[in-house]
């Protein structure tokens, strides 16, 4: 049982940071920025390169996340802002095009093979009845700290209140003396940082390869939409729902239901459960599980 809970938390962490990044950016720049999942690919690759040239891992990771944050701000100013004037779907395909270019660059520079960070692999240890590796714990700790930090900023600092105010009503925010453009730059930077950290946490306990980004698209979108696009903390709960479904789908024996001894969902379908949740969510709760006011058209 504790293994199940542990898997659940770990899987939630995989998706949550990037989903929060996507949702936070959407709260002010109103299109689903697919490039977010590619920021989650660039982050660990940059960290890897910086660590290879001799920087300590934490320093490499810090530099990489800041660099990705800056990249996100630059891309917003040069590409997405302009595309958004032609509509959210056009900005969305533009963000996907950016993602393709990122993949092309990584393919040529880093190659298609998977890589690992050069940490000594320690055998899993027993923690409260679950088998856990040290890297998994590090990954969990890092992503929890990042999520907690972001939540604290959002609710207990001036810039966080300005972010929420601008997301709620940009014109009124300006009329209250808030520099809305500045706030947009800050939240774009934060979304780049969070996405990069999400990618680093993911690759810390596994591998890094150029398909990380594309593989994240649907689970991340599912989590962000379940939580309500534009509601960053909702995305954490969305990620938990996705993780719960996947863990249950993976570990439930459906055999007795169908009169067989053992019947588990084929491994390949476990990823597809998040797609299915996404479609169900879009059909029945397109603006999130937690919406408590009617969205005006």
């Amino acid at each position, binding site marked *: 049982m504790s293994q199940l809970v542990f898997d659940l938390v770990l899987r939630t962490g995989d998706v949550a940071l990037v989903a929060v990044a996507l949702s936070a950016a959407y709260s002010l720049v109103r299109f689903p920025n697919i490039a977010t999942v590619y920021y989650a690919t660039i982050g660990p690759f940059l960290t890897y390169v910086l660590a290879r040239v001799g920087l300590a891992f934490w320093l490499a990771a810090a530099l990489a996340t800041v660099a990705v944050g800056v990249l996100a701000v630059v891309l917003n100013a040069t590409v997405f802002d302009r595309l958004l004037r032609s509509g959210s779907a056009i900005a969305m395909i533009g963000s996907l095009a950016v993602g393709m270019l990122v993949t092309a660059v990584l393919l040529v520079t880093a190659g298609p093979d998977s890589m690992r960070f050069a940490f000594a692999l320690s055998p899993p240890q027993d923690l409260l009845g679950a088998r856990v590796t040290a890297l998994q714990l590090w990954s969990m700790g890092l992503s929890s700290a990042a999520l907690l930090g972001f939540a604290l900023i959002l609710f207990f600092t001036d810039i966080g209140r300005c972010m929420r105010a601008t997301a709620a009503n940009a014109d009124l925010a300006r009329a209250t003396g808030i520099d809305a453009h500045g706030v947009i730059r800050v939240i774009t930077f934060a979304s780049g940082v969070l996405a990069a950290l999400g990618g680093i946490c993911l690759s810390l306990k596994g591998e890094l390869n150029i398909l990380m980004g594309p593989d994240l698209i*649907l689970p991340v979108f599912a989590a962000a939409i379940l939580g309500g696009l534009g509601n960053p903390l909702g995305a954490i709960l969305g990620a938990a729902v996705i993780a719960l479904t996947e863990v249950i789908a993976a570990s439930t024996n459906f055999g007795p239901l169908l009169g067989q001894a053992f019947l588990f969902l084929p491994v390949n379908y476990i990823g597809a459960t998040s797609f299915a949740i*996404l479609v169900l969510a879009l059909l029945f709760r397109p603006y999130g599980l937690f919406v408590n006011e009617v969205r005006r058209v």
Partner: protein
Amino acid sequence: MFDFILHVAIIAALNGLLALSLNLQLGYAGLANFGQIALFGAGAYGAALAFSWGFGPFAGLLLGLALVSLLALVFARLGRSLGADYWGIATLSIAEILRTVATNETWLTGGAQGIGGLPQLFGFDLPGTLALAAAALLATYLVLRGVTQSKFGLAVRLLREEPQLAASLGYDLAGLRRRVMLISGVPAGLCGFLYAHYVTFVGPDQLFASETFFIWAMVVIGGLANHSGAVLGAVALQILSASIPFAKDALGLTSEYVAAARLTLTGGGLLLFLLLRPQGLLPERIGSVRA
């Protein structure tokens, strides 16, 4: 070499069908379908399933069109309650779900191995197949041009530009969307059917989301809401894409560069045109409606 040129021409014509189909949705109706490849897949798997059950190509075409129409209706139904960006995500997800099903339901679809051994239509060789694909492309072009020049075409553009105005004028938006999806499903399904019988094989690897984005690039580069533009985009991108391996050999590059070049062609082409020439090579002609 001549065979290769014929092959490129056939694929270009087939891609032209997909581009015309997406152009009707995206260019004319403003429906940003991120799951276009699934419409193709429905046609292709229709042909393959009919073949594996022992039916002839005609039954395969009918089955493919039936599957395509069903999927088009699902897409249209989802569009009723969703904004453009949400609908994009929904169509992308459905296409990915279908690809996962095609990969895993081996008893039905042959799984990752797909279904092979489909016969060439009418026993055609390359020139014959090219003639068939070109005829399908021409017919689709003429039909869709007629559609967009009709009153229906005007309503569809109104759906794109001023949906609220269209609704207030008494247009049935859900009905318009449904008809656009059904009409554009036909060439996409037809393309899947012709492709299946041309390469004699259908498999889930043909259904990757990246294929959808390749079609998007054709339409955006060629010119949104311009039928000739969609065909031009399809032909141009197919020629460029087909010449990548030659460039690789000439420059002595590794195979990673081929994949990277195709991504750059699609992504870079999309981005350049969206930013610098959003109307595409052949812009939409305003007022091209015979009411």
